[in-house]
């Protein structure tokens, strides 16, 4: 075996073990397989648990799996959920043929996975709660990690925790990718206008250790961020339902959970290792495996939010519906890639905006909206 390609032997060992277990998942040479051990570790941005912390969680995987399966059929109270009870399978990439999951990102050689998992969750919630798959929000992991997390003392080497980063998303907000493009070196700087191109999380929920609540949240509001223990075989995952086949711990990692499948007994996950790993960057992991519902240690590690507010100009788009009531200042516009937006301001400005928007709706002109919170505060209609 070539010393430059040690992963070949590693991969063969994983495949052999999988074959003994009936091939529950498929291992292959991924872009992570080819990385040296220390480069792989650099991508694991959640402080690794101690062996004692893992030992204390004996029995947790079984209890979490049972709880996850037991949630099927549970009633759902959120008004925005597709139905009144939890289905046996759900995938935010295919909700009535629509996808509420943004594209796979690549965190590169930095332990910034918590930022990627957190923003994947927010991006999903932003579009899912509005029923607007075309929103295609792309938030700046660089802003969250190299500005907000850095202010807390986190670095690429230290990793971070989702409770801290989600808190920053609530209080400070995160700008869009074009205002601070990501590079794993943390180079560049955030655009000084970032407060005017901002997304904020609202209604964060700690879902740690509660598989039923995780399902409820995904079904009602969109994806959640979750941390789990990474075993050394995970780098070679290609497809199938992952269960760790080795006890060799590589570290801790953070992803977004975007659905589940009770028949296969697994969560659907979105990773941040590019499309050259896993199933185009996505994966399936067995309920309870790798402590994904409750990471060993004392910190909460599964979070979601119930909505995402924006303050930003959005791309030009069509106005599909207009709505008004007999009240003085109650006008709404349904924007193709945003959903319903209340027209901001008092009676006169509502009249002005409705006049512009009726023109745009009638002629098919696109409008560039400036969204502030839940309100449409400016409208640009151009030929």
């Amino acid at each position, binding site marked *: 075996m070539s010393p430059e390609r040690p992963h070949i032997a590693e991969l063969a060992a994983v495949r052999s073990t999988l074959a003994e277990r009936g091939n529950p998942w498929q291992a292959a040479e991924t872009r992570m397989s080819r990385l040296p051990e220390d480069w792989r570790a650099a991508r694991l941005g959640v402080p690794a648990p101690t062996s004692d912390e893992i030992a204390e969680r004996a029995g947790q995987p079984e209890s979490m799996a049972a709880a996850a399966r037991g949630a099927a059929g549970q009633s759902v109270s959120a008004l925005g959920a597709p139905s009144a009870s939890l289905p046996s399978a759900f995938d935010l990439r295919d909700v*009535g043929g629509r996808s509420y999951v943004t594209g796979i990102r690549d965190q590169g050689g930095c332990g910034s996975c918590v930022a990627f998992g957190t923003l994947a969750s927010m991006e999903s919630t932003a579009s899912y709660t509005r*029923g607007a798959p075309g929103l295609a929000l792309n938030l700046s992991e660089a802003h969250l990690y190299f500005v907000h997390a850095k202010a807390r003392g986190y670095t690429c080497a230290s990793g971070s925790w989702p409770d801290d980063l989600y808190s920053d998303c609530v209080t400070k907000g995160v700008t869009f990718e074009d205002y601070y493009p990501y590079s794993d070196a943390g180079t560049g700087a955030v655009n000084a206008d970032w407060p005017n191109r901002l997304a904020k999380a609202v209604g964060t929920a700690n879902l740690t250790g509660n598989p039923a609540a995780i399902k409820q949240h995904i079904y009602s509001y969109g994806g959640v961020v979750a941390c789990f223990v990474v075993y050394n075989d995970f780098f070679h995952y290609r497809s199938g339902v992952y269960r760790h086949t080795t006890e060799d711990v590589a570290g801790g990692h953070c992803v977004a959970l975007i659905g589940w499948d009770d028949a296969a007994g697994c969560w659907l996950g979105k990773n941040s290792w590019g499309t050259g790993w896993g199933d185009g960057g996505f994966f399936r992991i067995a309920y309870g495996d790798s402590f994904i519902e409750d990471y060993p240690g004392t910190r909460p590690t599964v979070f979601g939010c119930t909505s995402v507010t924006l303050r930003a100009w959005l791309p030009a788009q069509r106005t*599909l*519906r*207009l*709505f*008004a*009531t*007999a*009240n*003085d*200042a*109650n*006008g*709404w516009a*349904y924007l193709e890639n945003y959903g*319903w937006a*209340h027209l901001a301001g*008092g*009676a*006169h400005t*509502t*009249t002005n905006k*409705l*006049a512009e928007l*009726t023109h745009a*709706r*009638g002629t098919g002109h696109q409008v560039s909206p400036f969204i502030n919170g839940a309100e449409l505060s400016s409208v640009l209609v151009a030929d």
Partner: protein
Amino acid sequence: MATPVARKPRKAVPATVTAAEAAQAPPAPATAEAGPDTPPPAPAAMMAAATTAQDMLAPAPPSLDEQGIAIGDGLTVGWVHHRMITHLWSYDAVTGVWVWVDGIGWKRLSPVSEHGHSHLCLLATLATDRNLPVDYHEDAAGRIDQLLV
């Protein structure tokens, strides 16, 4: 108060309604006639005079299905779906616009507020101009107080 004369079958009114006709008593309403400032009956948040703060509590737009048709349990009572507005009629009062709903007849736009009335008028005009179907909600007096185009 002036109202258009109800006619059957449907007939354009603006060109034919005379001042005398406009002054005629309206057809008997289903409930007591509301004054020009009477708010729609529900929900409770709309009962008071409209202000910016109260407008934020006013009804939100209905949910839409993939074809853009309004859906939702709360919309089945008082809501009329997928109708065409073919004629508009107004007289010299601040809140004096009526619309002809194809297959139903004349409906007054709610006079609860002047601006709200103008907003409903804007949308009704759009619907007529572009032949767009509308969903609308009637208050207890049978006036259109919510309009979706």
